[in-house]
C-alpha cells in the first residue's frame, strides 16, 4: 500500500522523507507516520464535507475523493477519528456543564487553529480556519446529539423488551404456581429473600419486580449520592446487611423495590428540574437547566415521561402503587426526606439516558 518513497532526510527530529509527486511528508519508520500539513488537512476537510460530513465519510471514500497518492487508509482512519472526536480531554465529560464544555471545545479548536495560523503568514487563512473549526465543533455536537437520540431510543426499546420478557415470565410463573408450588423450595434456597417474596406472592402479579423497585430507588439515591454526598441521610444497604438480614425493607416480607423505569416517571420527568434546583448545589442545577435548554432534540423531560407513560406499566397499577406506599410507610427508621430525593434517584442508567446525563454527554465532542 505504501508506494516507494525517496529517502530525503530533512531537519526534523525524526527522519522524514517527502514523497515526490504528492508532497506527503512521512517518517521513515517501519510504520510511516504522516505529517498533516495545513494543505493536506484542508483537502481532507473538503473531502469530508463533500462526502456529507465525518459521519458519512469513511477512510475509503475520503481516500478516493482526496486522491492523494501515498495516503493510506491507515493515515486517514486515525485522522478521521480524531477529526470526529474533537480534541477535548475526556474528563470534561463529567466536570463541566454542557455549556462550559462547548465553550471549551471552541476555545480548544480556536487555539489549535491558532497554532496552525502561526505557521502561516496569511491572516485571512487563519480566520478562515478558525471559523471552519468552529463550524466543525458545532456539527460535531449536533452529531453527538444525533447519536444520543438513537442510543436513547435503543435503550428504551431494550428496556421495553426486557419488560415484556419479565411479564411473560411472571405469567408463566403464576401459571406454574397454580399447578404446583414445587419450585419454591428450590428457588429460595439460594435466594431467601426472593423465595420469601414468592412464597406470599402467587396472588400478586409481580412480587419480585416489586423488589426490584427498591433497588432502583436506591440506585438512584446512590448515583445521586455520588454526585452530592447525602452524608448518611439514609442507611446504606451494606450496613443494614451486615447487622442482620432483617433489614427494614423486609419487615413485611417483601422488598420494597420499585421498578425503576416506571415508578413515578411522570413525576420524575416533570419534577426533575425543580428537584435539582432544590437539592443540588447551584452548579448542578445550572447544568441541568442548560442541558434541557440546549437540547431540543426531543429528549426533554416531558417526552421521557410520555414514553414511559405509554408503555405497559406493571407496577403502576393500583396494587403496585399501594404496595410501594405500604413499604415506604413501614420504613420507620427512615428519615422523612427519603421521599424527596426519590424521583431524582429514579435515574438509573436506563433513565439516565434521558434527562440527566445529557448534561454530561453533551460535552463529548
Amino acid at each position, binding site marked *: 500500500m505504501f508506494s516507494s518513497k525517496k529517502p530525503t532526510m530533512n531537519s526534523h527530529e525524526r527522519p522524514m522523507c517527502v514523497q515526490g509527486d504528492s508532497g506527503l511528508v512521512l517518517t521513515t519508520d517501519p510504520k510511516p507516520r504522516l505529517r498533516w500539513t495545513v494543505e493536506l488537512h484542508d483537502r481532507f476537510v473538503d473531502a469530508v464535507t463533500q462526502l456529507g460530513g465525518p459521519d458519512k465519510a469513511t477512510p475509503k471514500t475520503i481516500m478516493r475523493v482526496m486522491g492523494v497518492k501515498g495516503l493510506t*487508509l491507515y*493515515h486517514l482512519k486515525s485522522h478521521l477519528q480524531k477529526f470526529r472526536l474533537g480534541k477535548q*480531554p475526556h474528563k470534561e465529560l463529567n466536570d463541566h456543564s454542557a455549556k462550559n464544555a462547548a465553550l471549551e471545545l471552541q476555545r480548544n479548536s480556536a487555539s489549535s487553529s491558532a497554532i496552525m495560523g502561526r505557521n502561516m503568514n496569511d491572516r485571512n487563512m487563519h480566520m478562515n480556519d478558525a471559523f471552519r473549526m468552529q463550524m466543525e465543533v458545532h456539527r460535531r455536537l449536533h452529531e453527538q446529539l444525533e447519536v444520543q437520540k438513537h442510543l436513547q431510543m435503543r435503550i428504551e426499546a*431494550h428496556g421495553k*423488551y426486557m419488560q415484556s420478557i419479565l411479564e411473560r415470565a411472571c405469567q408463566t*410463573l403464576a401459571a406454574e404456581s397454580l399447578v404446583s408450588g414445587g419450585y419454591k423450595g428450590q428457588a429460595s434456597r439460594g435466594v431467601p429473600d426472593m423465595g420469601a417474596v414468592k412464597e406470599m406472592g402467587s396472588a400478586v402479579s409481580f412480587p419480585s419486580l416489586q423488589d426490584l423497585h427498591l433497588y432502583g430507588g436506591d*440506585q438512584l439515591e446512590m448515583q445521586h449520592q455520588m454526585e452530592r454526598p447525602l452524608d448518611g441521610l439514609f442507611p446504606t444497604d451494606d450496613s443494614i446487611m451486615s447487622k442482620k438480614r432483617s433489614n427494614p425493607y423486609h419487615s413485611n416480607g417483601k422488598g420494597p423495590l420499585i421498578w425503576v423505569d416506571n415508578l413515578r416517571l411522570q413525576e420524575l420527568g416533570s419534577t426533575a428540574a425543580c428537584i435539582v434546583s432544590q437539592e443540588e448545589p447551584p452548579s448542578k442545577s445550572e447544568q441541568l437547566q442548560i442541558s434541557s435548554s440546549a437540547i431540543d432534540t426531543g429528549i426533554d423531560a416531558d417526552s421521557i415521561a410520555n414514553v414511559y407513560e405509554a408503555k405497559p406499566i406493571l407496577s403502576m397499577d393500583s396494587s403496585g402503587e399501594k404496595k410501594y406506599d405500604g413499604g415506604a410507610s413501614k420504613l420507620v427508621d427512615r428519615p422523612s426526606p427519603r421521599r424527596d430525593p426519590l424521583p431524582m434517584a429514579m435515574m438509573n442508567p436506563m433513565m439516565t*439516558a434521558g434527562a440527566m446525563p445529557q448534561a454530561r454527554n453533551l460535552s463529548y465532542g
Partner: protein
Amino acid sequence: MEVAMEEAVAPSGCSSTTTTMDDDFICAWNDWNPAVDWGSFSSVADDFHELIESMMCPDAVDSPDGLMSVSQTPSYNSSPSSMATSADTPAEEDARAGGGHDGDDKGLRLVHLLVAAAEALAGPHKSPELARVILVRLKELVSQAGAGAGVGGTSIERLTLHFTDALQGLLDGGTSAHCGGRNSFRDGHLHHHTSDVLTAFQLLQDMSPYIKFGHFTANQAILEETRGDRRIHIIDYDIAEGVQWASLLQALVSRPGGSQPPHLRITAVTRGGSRAMRETGRLLAAFAASVGQPFSFSQCRLDADEQFRPAGVKVVKGETLVMNCVLHPTMNNTRSGSASSVASFLLGAVELGAKVVTLVEEEEQEQYEEKGFVRRFMGELHRYSAVWDSLEAGFPMQGKARGMVERVILAPRIAGAVGRAYRDSKEEETDGGWGKWMAVMGFGRVTISCFNHCQAKLLLGLFNDGYRVEEDGSNNLVLGWKSRRLLAASVWKPPLSPPPPCPPSPIRVGIVTPDGLTNSFEDSDFVSD
C-alpha cells in the same frame, strides 16, 4: 514548523483510554503469588492444624523448612509456608513482608489461597486432598465474614466464595460422585428460578454496560452494513431470550430515509429444546409488531455434535445475510458452545455468503503462554474481580442488589469459566480469541464506524467513569474496566473464496500455535479492507 496536526500525537478523546487507574488495585493483583501465607491464618483453630496433618501428602512433608516444623511446633505461626507444594520461598517472604495494610491483607490472602487451591487441584503436584483442605479453610474464612449468605462480606470475600464453590465443583466432579447440598445448588442456572434470573439480569443491565455494549455495537454494525437492503436475514448463534434484537427492530423502523422498513428475519440456532426458542420468537414478533417492523422468525438446529450445518438454514434469494455470534453469556446460558461448534458456525458464514459477521466475545488480556489451569484460573479471577470492582464502584450502596447479581448471574458464569479452563487445560484445546482466529481464516475487517464508537462511549458515559472503550484494530471495539479489557465486539466480512487452505476442521482451533496466530494477525493488520 508547519505542523498542524501530527499523527504521532497521542490520540485524543476516545482512544486515550488506558493509563489512569486504581493503582492500589492493580498492585494487589500484581502481587499475586501462589504462595500461601499460613502465618496470617494463625488464628485458625487447632482442629485445622490436625486436619492438615492428617491430609498432608508425603511429598510436602519432605520439603525442608515447612511442614516438619508445622507438625512439630504447635504454633505453626513461625514457619508458615510450604503448604503450597510449588511455593518458592523468596516470593513467600515478599508476600509476607509486603502485607502491611490490614484491609487489603485479607483479600490478598484469600486470593493466595484460591490460587494455591487451584494449584493443588491441577498444578504440577496434584493433590486433591490438599485442595480440599484449602477449600474448607476458604469457606470458613468467607463464611465468617458472612459472605456465605451471598450478601455480606467484602466484595473480595464474595468473589472468593464463588471461586471456591467453582473449585469445589471441579473437585467433586473429578473425584467422587456428586455431593449434594450447596454444590448442587451452585451447579448451574437451572437451580435459580427464572424470575430470579430475570430480576438479576435486569439489575445487571441497569448496573453495568456489559450486556448492552455488545448488543448495541453489533446491532449498529449490522444496521450500517445492511443500509438500503430490503430483506435482512440474521442468523443468531445464541439468541437466548432475544434481548439483543429489540433495539435493532426499533432502529430499523426509525432508520433515516423515511422509506418503509426492510423485512427482518431472524433464524435462531438451537440446541435441542425448541420450546424456549418458540417463546423467544413469539416475544420478538410481538415486539416487532408493536413498533411496526415486518418480522419473521425461524429456527435451525445444531447437529448432535453441536455442528452448524449451513444447509439447515433456509436462505431466500435477494436477502442480505448477517451472522451474529455473541459468545458473552448474557442471561442464563452458561453453556456457551464448544470451540468446534463456534468454528462451524463462523465458517458457515463463508458457505452461506453472509455479508457481515458480528462477534462479541470475552477479551483475553494476557496471553497465557503456559495454558495451564492455574494461569487461566488466575485470568478468570482477574477478570471477575474487575467485574466485581466495576459493580461495586458504580453502586457502592447496593450491596444487596450486587449480591443478587453476583449470586444468580455471575456465580454460574464463574463456575462455567473455571470448568472450561479446567477442561481446556486438559485437552490442550485453546483459542486465542475468535477474532484472531477469524483473521487467520481470511475474514476481512469491517471498520467500526464513528457512530458506533460514539454510541459506545455515550453508553459507557451513563455508568461509572472506570469503564473504557477503545478501538483495537479497525474493526474491534473493546470494553474494559480500568486497565482490564473485558469484552470485544468485532465486525467481519467472510472471505469471498471458499476459505481455508486447510480443512476447516474444528480441531484446527487447537492446532494453530500462538505464534502462528499472532503473526498472521499482524500481517493482516495492514490489509484491512
